[in-house]
């Protein structure tokens, strides 16, 4: 092949490639429906969750029937692919008007310009649980219908048989008491008395274990400046907590084997299970009235649990944000919030909806979780650096679990987080 034909082939290929990319730009259709209403696209992450999807479909149907200006068109994605879909859509400038997102990612997407300030009437956002509202730099960007909560699930009979005090919200286990209890339970024949879900991966690690770190007096980042993790993630309190964490595995109090979920507790293979309320109904089914929902242990600064679940926001490229706002205002009705709670087993975000809820109302079996959420919930740091912090925290915690030196691992994690923040010019702080 001579030089000329190579050049020809390359130019033909380049033209073809250009044509293909041009095709990618097509397909952004009109935004009006057949009867002249403005269409609002809406993406949810709940394709794998029929109970949740059912409520959304009901809300959309009711909203579309309630007025003749807008029409909401709903599209759902499986949770595993959802964030990637949003990032890809943002890169292609093709975001939907309405989108839901996990609470801790809100500051990142707000900083990136994906979403705009929510601007809902304050009577709506004020009525919600504080952890069901997502903000960045003192501006509200998202709001959700519910929150989730973690707690320790136990059997009353097991605790009483082993003379372990049953803790309360006012008087939770101190860490020494907790250690003693785990030692006693191990001697009583439980191979690993505590299940903390360490076999799971991903955001669970930050969601479940960073509150323990906060309870011990450490944190993921210095929340005053949001510029460095120095001192928060590698200070003496953090080292003390992670040493406990490492020991808990080394002593066989807990393990990272087993299956994700709460099967071990339901089969009475573990005595205590640190898990979310989404597993609580099955625990009630397995243990009946014997089941207890307890606050997590106090590592020094009082018990803490993670707050913030999935919430709704409006994209910055939305052509009719008024319509999106109208839909969200319409959707924050107590009846829908109760429906989410009943079908999905989540804590309703408003008091009225909680009172009407099947599981969390005055007669509800899962009522203790409401108190845990109100008393102990701490939001994850509201900084765009959160995805990096979370990934680094997970890696460091896993390394420590597997026996890495605590101080140097935490120092490494701090360095990684600080490097990232610096290379992003402080993420706007």
């Amino acid at each position, binding site marked *: 092949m001579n030089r000329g*034909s190579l050049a*020809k*082939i*390359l130019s*033909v*290929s*380049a033209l*073809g*490639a250009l044509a*293909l*990319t041009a095709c990618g730009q097509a397909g952004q259709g009109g935004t009006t429906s057949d009867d002249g209403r403005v269409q609002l696209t809406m993406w949810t992450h709940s394709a794998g969750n029929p109970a949740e999807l059912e409520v959304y479909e009901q809300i959309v149907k009711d909203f579309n029937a309630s007025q003749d200006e807008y029409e909401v068109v709903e599209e759902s994605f499986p949770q595993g692919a959802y964030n990637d879909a949003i*990032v890809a859509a*943002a890169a292609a400038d093709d975001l939907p008007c309405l989108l839901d997102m996990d609470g801790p990612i809100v500051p*990142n*997407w707000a*900083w*990136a*310009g*994906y979403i705009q300030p929510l601007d809902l009437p304050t009577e709506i956002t004020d009525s919600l649980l504080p952890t069901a509202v997502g903000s960045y730099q003192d501006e509200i960007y998202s709001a959700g219908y519910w929150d989730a909560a973690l707690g320790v699930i136990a059997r009353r009979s097991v605790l009483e048989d082993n003379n372990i005090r049953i803790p309360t919200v006012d008087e939770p286990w101190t860490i020494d008491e907790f250690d003693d209890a785990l030692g006693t339970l191990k001697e009583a024949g439980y191979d690993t008395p505590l299940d903390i879900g360490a076999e799971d*991966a991903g955001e669970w690690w930050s969601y479940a274990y960073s509150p323990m770190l906060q309870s011990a007096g450490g944190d993921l980042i210095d929340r005053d400046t949001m510029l460095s993790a120095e001192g928060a993630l590698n200070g003496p309190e953090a080292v003390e907590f992670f040493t406990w964490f490492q020991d808990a595995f080394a002593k066989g109090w807990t*393990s*990272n*084997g087993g299956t994700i979920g709460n099967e071990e507790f339901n089969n009475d293979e573990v005595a205590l299970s640190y898990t979310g309320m989404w597993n609580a109904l099955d625990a009630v089914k397995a243990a009946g009235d014997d089941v207890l929902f307890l606050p997590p242990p106090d590592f020094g600064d009082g018990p803490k649990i993670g707050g913030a679940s999935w919430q709704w926001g409006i994209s910055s490229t939305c052509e009719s944000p008024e319509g999106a706002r109208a839909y969200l205002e319409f959707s924050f009705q107590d009846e829908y919030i109760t429906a989410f709670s009943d079908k999905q087993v989540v804590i309703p975000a408003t008091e009225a909806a909680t009172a009407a809820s099947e599981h969390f109302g005055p007669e509800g079996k899962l009522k203790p979780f409401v108190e845990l959420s109100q008393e102990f919930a701490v939001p994850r740091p509201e900084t765009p650096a959160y*995805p*990096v912090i979370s*990934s*680094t925290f997970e*890696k460091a915690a*896993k*390394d420590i*679990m*597997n*026996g*890495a030196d605590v101080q140097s691992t935490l120092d*490494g994690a701090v*360095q990684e987080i600080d*490097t*990232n923040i610096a*290379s*992003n*010019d402080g993420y706007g702080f």
Partner: protein
Amino acid sequence: MTLTHTAPTERPAAGRQQSRRRRAAAGRREQRAGLTMAAPALILLLLFLVVPVLLAFGLSFTNARLISPNPPRFVGLDNFVRAFTADPTFLRSTLNTFVFAAVIVPVQAGLGLALAVLVNQKIRGVTAFRVIFFVPVVTSIVVVSILWKFMYQDDGLINSFINTVTFGAWQGTAWLNNPSTALGAIIVLSIWQAVGFHMLIWLSGLQTIPEELYEAARMDGASPWQQFTNVTWPGLRSTMVFVLVTITIAALGLFVQVDVMTQGGPVNSTTTLVYHAVRKGYREQETGYGATISLIFFVIVLVIALIQRRLTRDED
């Protein structure tokens, strides 16, 4: 005479010109056809290989991020300095990648050859063995990884097997949770999964060696081992080069097993260059730094491939 003398000289000249023109036209037609046939592959290669490589090259000198309101900024060699001086995970990833390749290449190639020789016998039921050895290759590596993850657990199949055959004298560990065994566990699983493929390649090489050569060797009184070293091995030279290059490239690109089974842990003992690039460049959204790692990886693979080519060509 003159006529007969001149005519032949003139006619061939005209014919040469004509046939040259014909040949040129045919050549152009051929060229056009070739172009059309090559275009689909070339367009795709350009779009998904050349353009990304060029982009990665450009991005690795910037602080580009996946999600950011700020435009990327040129940062010179900062990313490269960071990789080699301030990122112990990167250095560990490089080491792990080399260890993995250094073990996989000889063991997998050797085992593949041994299996190929075994299933090349003319005995009944040999096809069944070929199929058995090949089954893991057609199974998705994700599925294989998930299954082996269960088998490697503290109370998993492997440990209960060890326990049984040693009559309880030797207790296994939780293979993937132990920093000193995790990479080894991944190596074993990877060999098990891929060895069937290379067995098949070796087998095709074995079957190109004519039977007469073996006959002649036997008549000369060669033992089976002498037959292998003097007939089989020289006959497999080009197959050997192919197997070596493909195993090396596949081994350096280790990713799925790590992503599914250990996520680089415990304590960085299984992180690899490709895994680290994905973690940094995509999951932690530092596209620029991820591109830097990819570029370094690209250069390493290129250098190794060139060395291999050099070594195998010199012997020709």
